[in-house]
């Protein structure tokens, strides 16, 4: 186990560059990436976070996240899906979560080294999700699955009741990941724009490491495909830009959902 103070958390929606960012951060000496620990397979997740698609903040979430970010035994070694610790951390853990958006208020107030939130354009993210078949892999698309989110953010009730089809539902879950962002003190986490990291990785990486008071380790190649990109062979970073792949109507529907959820601020 490593000290909680050294831990780093990376939060973002599915297909928004969380693995890429976490892998680069985990190249700091003594660090190892913890890949998607919020999965029902882990006992402490079932016990403290339940089986919600996007678990919400609760007093018990703190305990679960502490166990994850200190590299507790149950997270050591990876499962077939890649979940778990990639390597042996001696100094700290870089936790990478696509399911922790609603836990951001808890995460960013924990005494850890830093929390990063990575945001990618919702149209590009949804398009990429469709390409890898996320809509067929169990993303819930009914109002019941979002009931706990509505209870926490009543202003989205109308928007959720209007959702139709996979494109809009995936956009809605993108929104759920970032709902807490405009409601938290911006100094509690570092907000990273995926597109900037793709366009100017060298400038952005210096700022990224400076945000946790670390020097950028040598040998980081931001152009290298991440673990996930390799798995979904054929998709290169930035290739799933939507201009040529999505209809204008689909894009407008996604942007309308983002606007209904009150997250226009996050758009470029």
């Amino acid at each position, binding site marked *: 186990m490593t000290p909680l103070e050294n831990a780093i958390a990376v939060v973002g929606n599915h297909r928004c560059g969380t693995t890429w960012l976490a892998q680069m951060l985990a190249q700091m000496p003594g660090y190892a990436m913890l890949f998607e620990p919020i999965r029902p397979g882990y006992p402490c997740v079932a016990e403290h976070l339940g089986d919600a698609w996007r678990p919400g*903040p*609760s*007093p018990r*979430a*703190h305990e679960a996240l502490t166990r994850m970010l200190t590299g507790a035994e149950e997270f050591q070694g990876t499962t077939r899906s890649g979940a778990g610790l990639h390597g042996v951390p001696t100094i700290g853990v870089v936790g990478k979560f696509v399911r922790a958006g609603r836990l951001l*208020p*808890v995460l960013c*107030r924990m005494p850890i080294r830093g929390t990063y939130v990575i*945001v990618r354009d919702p149209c590009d993210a949804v398009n990429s999700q469709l390409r890898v078949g996320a809509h067929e892999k169990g993303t819930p698309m009914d109002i019941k699955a979002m009931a706990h989110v509505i209870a*926490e*953010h*009543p*202003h989205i009730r109308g928007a959720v009741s209007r959702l139709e089809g996979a494109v809009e539902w995936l956009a809605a879950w993108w929104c759920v990941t970032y709902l*807490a*962002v*405009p*409601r*938290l*003190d*911006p100094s509690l986490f*570092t*907000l*990273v*724009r995926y597109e*900037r990291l793709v366009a*100017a990785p060298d*400038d*952005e990486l210096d*700022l*990224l490491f400076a*945000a946790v008071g670390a020097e950028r380790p040598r040998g980081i190649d931001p152009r290298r495909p991440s673990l996930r990109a390799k798995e979904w062979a054929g998709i290169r970073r930035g290739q799933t830009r939507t201009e040529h792949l999505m209809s204008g109507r689909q894009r407008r529907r996604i942007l309308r959902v983002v606007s209904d959820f*009150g997250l226009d*601020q*996050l758009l470029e």
Partner: protein
Amino acid sequence: MYRPLAPQRRRPVRFLGEVSAQPSPWPVLIGGGLVLGLGLGLVAYMGTRTAQMRTRSRRLRRWG
């Protein structure tokens, strides 16, 4: 520790490497001040030049 979110409260978001949403007013103020100052200086200078020329021509007319 867990603290519930204030649902109504919204803050401007700030991305890494981007300038803050409200840019500093100082560059505009300093630039504006410079332009105004130089403009006024030029007008004042031209004014004194005109006055000088008038005095000079009057003196020449009167005294040769």
